[in-house]
């Protein structure tokens, strides 16, 4: 049983079941939309977790990459007539390139210095999006043309699907594939090298690991995750504002990583779920909504210091042993 749970593919398998069964218990498309938001956030958080939880490098600017993906999906079709799906690919490739160029100099920095440098990057992206209103629509945001999948399904197969359902399945499939790719990476020479860098850079170097290159690789990979999530959100929402690239969104992504559990792929999904769903639940408390959200986050971190999933795992293991 425990061997089964520890298998590399256990997490993608659990997610397949979760994504497949959840619609059966969700009462309306409103909830389906929230679940979709969870899957999209979780996708970005998995990427960020590879950087933070495995390689031990912080980024307070990942919403910048998220924004690049989102605005690529919005702007390229509108301004240049690029088909939506290509716009998504271009957004991901651009994100990778920018991560590579930005990462080379700043990944030499450590700890708080790296945090501030990535923060600066995120602010820069948000500023460009805000200021170049003639392309991006500026602070008011911009409408995003749909991919036309619904039309395609109808004309090709005579299938009629609701937008909410369609995006639930697209985001769910993305999440499963994203988790699968992440566990693949973790369980590979690259993954071991990243975890080694996290624990002792000097020992990693002496073992022959090109530490600078490893950090760059995982930074680029995590940037691509963020960009794809950004594109998905833009296409799903049909509208996007500069907030998606903003500082608060970067912080939210980091919070999801830490809350769910650093170095836990499943934790990434749980962290995203908590921070997307909890505010919705807490709206019934009106004025106290934010107060309660803050309190709950503090309680989680105090009692499950390693994050929700690793924390619960340790609790269960402790029970089993006792």
């Amino acid at each position, binding site marked *: 049983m425990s061997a089964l749970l520890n298998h590399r593919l256990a997490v993608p398998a659990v997610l397949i079941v979760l994504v497949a069964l959840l619609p059966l218990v969700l009462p309306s498309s409103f909830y389906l939309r929230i679940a979709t938001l969870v899957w999209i956030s979780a996708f970005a958080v998995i990427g960020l977790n590879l950087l933070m939880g495995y390689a031990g490098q912080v980024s307070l600017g990942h919403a910048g990459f998220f924004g690049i993906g989102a605005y690529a999906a919005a702007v390229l079709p509108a301004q240049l007539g690029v088909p939506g799906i290509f716009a998504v690919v271009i957004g991901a490739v651009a994100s990778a390139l920018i991560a590579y160029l930005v990462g080379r100099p700043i990944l030499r920095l450590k700890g708080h210095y790296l945090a501030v440098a990535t923060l600066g990057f995120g602010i820069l992206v948000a500023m460009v999006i805000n200021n170049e209103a003639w392309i991006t629509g500026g602070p008011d945001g911009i409408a995003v043309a749909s991919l036309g999948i619904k039309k395609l399904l109808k004309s090709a197969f005579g299938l009629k699907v609701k937008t909410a359902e369609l995006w639930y399945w697209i985001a769910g499939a993305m999440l499963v594939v994203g988790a699968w790719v992440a566990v693949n990476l973790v369980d*590979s020479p690259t993954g*071991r090298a990243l975890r080694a860098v996290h624990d002792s850079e000097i020992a990693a170097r*002496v073992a022959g690991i090109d530490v600078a290159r490893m950090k760059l690789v995982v930074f680029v990979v995590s940037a691509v995750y963020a960009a794809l999530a950004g594109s998905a959100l833009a296409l799903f929402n049909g509208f996007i504002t500069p907030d998606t690239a903003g500082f608060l969104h970067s912080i939210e992504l980091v919070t999801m990583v830490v809350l769910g559990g650093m170095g836990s792929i499943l934790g990434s999904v749980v962290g995203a779920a908590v921070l997307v769903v909890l505010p919705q639940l807490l709206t019934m408390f009106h004025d106290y909504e934010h107060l309660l959200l803050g309190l709950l986050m503090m309680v989680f971190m105090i009692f499950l210091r390693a994050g929700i999933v690793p924390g619960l795992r340790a609790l269960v293991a402790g029970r089993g042993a006792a």
Partner: protein
Amino acid sequence: MSILSVEDLGIEFGGLKAVDNVSFAVEAGEVFSIIGPNGAGKTTLFNLISGVYTPKHGKVLLEGRDVTGVGPHLLARKGLSRTFQNLQIFFRMTALENVMVGCHRHERMNVFAHLLALPSVARQNEATRAAALTLLSRVGLAAYADTVAGSMPYGALKRLEIARALAADPKVLLLDEPAAGCNPVETEEIDALIHQIAADGVTVVLVEHDMKLVMRISDRLHVLDYGRTLAEGTAETVRRNPDVIAAYLGSHGSKEAARAFG
């Protein structure tokens, strides 16, 4: 040609000459020890040789080639490996994974293959795992394979570092106080292990405080004091060198000198 040599090597920290004009040559297959009182510059010398520090002057030659200023990860690929006096373990990884990281330089680093879990990656993982397990058994830690390093006892971690260094399949292995903090039984095990490593043809450069171990195991010794060379030669000649005895008397008191050289 010597397998490892240093020429006029030196580095300063804020005016303190931690290593000052040190030269020596290590021949392939020998156990070469570097001894000296605390603060003599032994660890700094290892840091210079392994590329962790860049020397202020002097050269490091590996198999006759100048490798001064070459980074540790490139030196690892050229066959130089080391352990650390203050443990540098990957504490959140299992013992087996620690040693698997040591195999890094033999692994193909194709990130796209890793992301997509191509069949070659599974084969690679299996090969690395098998090699790491063999090494763990060799240092007597097979029972700890799936134990997270952070919860292993100190003596075991000392041997885990050696196993990880061996995983790189080094030609030259630098061991910085491998028996420090170990009890007599563990020291005995480390002694046997170093013998075995040397017997396998790996050149060992050893820094160690346990003089009994050093005298027994070394082909030659190089003595440092205040960053400078004090003496070099076989255990017999070094043991009788008055400068060496004086240095140990000065910094450690007669008891340690007696224990070390008695």
